[in-house]
């Protein structure tokens, strides 16, 4: 297809993540490291999910037919479970690492758990988005006509928007998840898991992009608002931020950014 499609879809899908990376993560080496470790954890979770699916397929002897579809759906659901499990494991690892860093370097301020929640969420999101979309992107540079067999011609655009929403969702899920773990609010973890399952299940109705995308975006906005309040934001701080009065506000409240 055209270069316009390639660049357009690439920036739709990865633009916000790239901006988040450049402005919040690239400046601090420790955050970059935690981001990459987060990406690694997601990768390992994907490995286990693929292993499960592969074994399930070998058990059913690779027969064609509806059973493959069911296996795929099962694979997707199990994969979501494994991803959340690995998110929990990453939380445990970060907790241990934080304590270790604190004991060795008492004066040096280790990154707070909230920051690590954000970084880990972004790591998961970037890796997830990249794995989902990069092959499609590289195909979009080659020759072809989209939708020539009756599929939707908006394939690339839809995939790009879906990737974007998945990345942002992972960020919000990370924040909510870690906060839930910190405060031992297991309901938060359950909600994260359920919304993740819901989002994945929504993609099963894939040709109907409208419902699929719109509902996923609604879920993302809801998660975003929840994550905002969980991370310590409030309506007041939002108002001050938008009116560019936040410096005084923060100084007044003696909170560090």
């Amino acid at each position, binding site marked *: 297809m055209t270069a316009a499609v390639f660049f357009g879809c690439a920036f739709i899908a990865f633009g916000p993540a790239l901006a988040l990376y450049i402005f919040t993560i690239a400046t*601090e*080496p*420790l955050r*970059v*490291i935690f981001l*990459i*470790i987060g*990406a*690694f954890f997601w*990768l390992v979770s*994907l*490995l286990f*999910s*693929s*292993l499960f*699916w*592969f074994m399930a397929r070998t058990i059913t002897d690779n027969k064609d037919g509806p059973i493959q579809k069911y296996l*795929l759906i099962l*694979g*997707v659901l199990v*994969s*979501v479970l494994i*991803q959340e499990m690995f998110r929990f494991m990453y939380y445990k690892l970060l907790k241990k690492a934080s304590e270790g*860093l604190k004991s*060795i*370097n008492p004066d*040096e301020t280790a990154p707070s758990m909230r920051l690590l929640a954000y970084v880990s969420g972004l790591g998961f999101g970037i*890796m*997830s988005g*990249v*794995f*989902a979309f*990069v*092959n*499609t992107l*590289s195909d979009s540079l080659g020759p072809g006509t989209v939708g020539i067999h009756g599929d939707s011609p908006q*394939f690339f655009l*839809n*995939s790009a928007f*879906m990737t974007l929403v*998945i990345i942002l969702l992972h960020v919000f899920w990370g924040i909510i998840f870690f906060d839930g773990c910190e405060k031992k609010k297991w309901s938060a973890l359950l909600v994260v898991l359920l919304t993740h399952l819901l*989002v*994945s299940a929504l*993609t*099963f109705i*894939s*040709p109907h992009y409208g419902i699929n995308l719109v509902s996923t975006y609604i879920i993302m906005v809801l998660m975003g608002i929840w994550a905002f309040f969980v991370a310590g934001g409030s309506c007041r701080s939002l108002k001050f931020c938008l009116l560019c009065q936040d410096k005084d506000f923060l100084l007044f409240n003696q909170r560090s950014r």
Partner: protein
Amino acid sequence: MIFPSRDFKVLSGFSSDLEARGVLCSPEPGTPQGRAMLTFMASDSEEEVCDERTSLMSAESPPPRCCQEARQGLEDGENAAQWRSQDSEEDLDDADRYVCSGVPGQPLGLEEELTLKYGAKHVIMLFVPVTLCMIVVVATIKSVRFYTEKNGQLIYTPFTEDTPSVGQRLLNSVLNTLIMISVIVAMTIFLVVLYKYRCYKFIHGWLIMSSLMLLFLFTYIYLGEVLKTYNVAMDYPTLFLTVWNFGAVGMVCIHWKGPLVLQQAYLIMISALMALVFIKYLPEWSAWVILGAISVYDLVAVLCPKGPLRMLVETAQERNEPIFPALIYSSAMVWTVGMAKLDPSSQGALQLPYDPEMEEDSYDSFGEPSYPEVFEPPLPGSPEGELEEEEERGVKLGLGDFIFYSVLVGKAAATGSGDWNTTLACFVAILIGLCLTLLLLAVFKKALPALPISITFGLIFYFSTDNLVRPFMDTLASHQLYI
């Protein structure tokens, strides 16, 4: 091989430098290398000589030392060895590049804290060049068809993989690996012997010839292929000018003095070139087995007390000699934060004494390097506290590590499926391995092999992603499901 600049202990062996010091190849007529060189010319397999050379150069691991020691070593060296007159600029360069850890006898707690404090920064300082090298290699592999075409094999991997049966192919690749590894081991031992008997001129000459070949010949071939791919015409005068400038500046930067960033860029480029050559000329299965075997060898050579690399390092340390800088990527950087008063005594490290023999080579401009590269940090509470400089301790990584990381990622990118997921998975795996190695480095504070962990992760992730994850993700993508 990876080691901190401020480590006082013996650097045990540059295992990774061993493998792919392909940077430095030089034809030596009348020696096996010379024959290899002739064969090389005939069969168009360029890095045979480099392989041999590589092994030889592996032994040169820089013992970590303080500036003063380095300077002293230089002085001793200048008095002792004649070869300094030609190559002392390298040693001065070397000393310049050593980021001194500062004063020996600092309280250990402070050292430890400082190491950990600077740990994350050093990891990133190594992530960036490794990533850049991999990006160059993957971009070339994906676009220039030349490096994925099969055009013969090296003399070191004589067994072909075009066999009908799987068992035969496996056997051939294992035999290829055995031959390659034994060549490398032989070269290492040869290098140790050379170094022990102080044949410095030989080694230096070889280094220079090798980097000449890499910077000129390989660059010319690479440029030719890239121009062919993009169908861009370039006339010979322009080509000559470009390649000449690139190569000459590269030689100056790598072997003599130059801005650190430019030197790092050149080292990255020659590592990428070498990795591309390996990717082209190593057959499929042999490449993977060789990668595995090299990591094992790396581990053994660096950590075992009887390893040739370790002996080499100990010899180097006994003689208090610095290591050839052309084989190591140094991430050291120094920044000055407002110098209130230049204390001449603390600047002493930069003012390296002249050797009268040097003058005959008209290297007069040595006295002060054009940029302050190394400082001794002020003692805490010392009167030099006004000198508000801050020294950044660097970590050094052997070029062989760069080359083999890039070979792994490049091979992952070159496999016929055209899958980007495999490439990315290997990339992340290698970075994580490097992270773990640096963590171990911070804990153990001695030189460590940088290949084993990263290559192991890379191999695991390559094979598992290629065989397990790829079908899963492809099926998901075809049904437009998202996990």
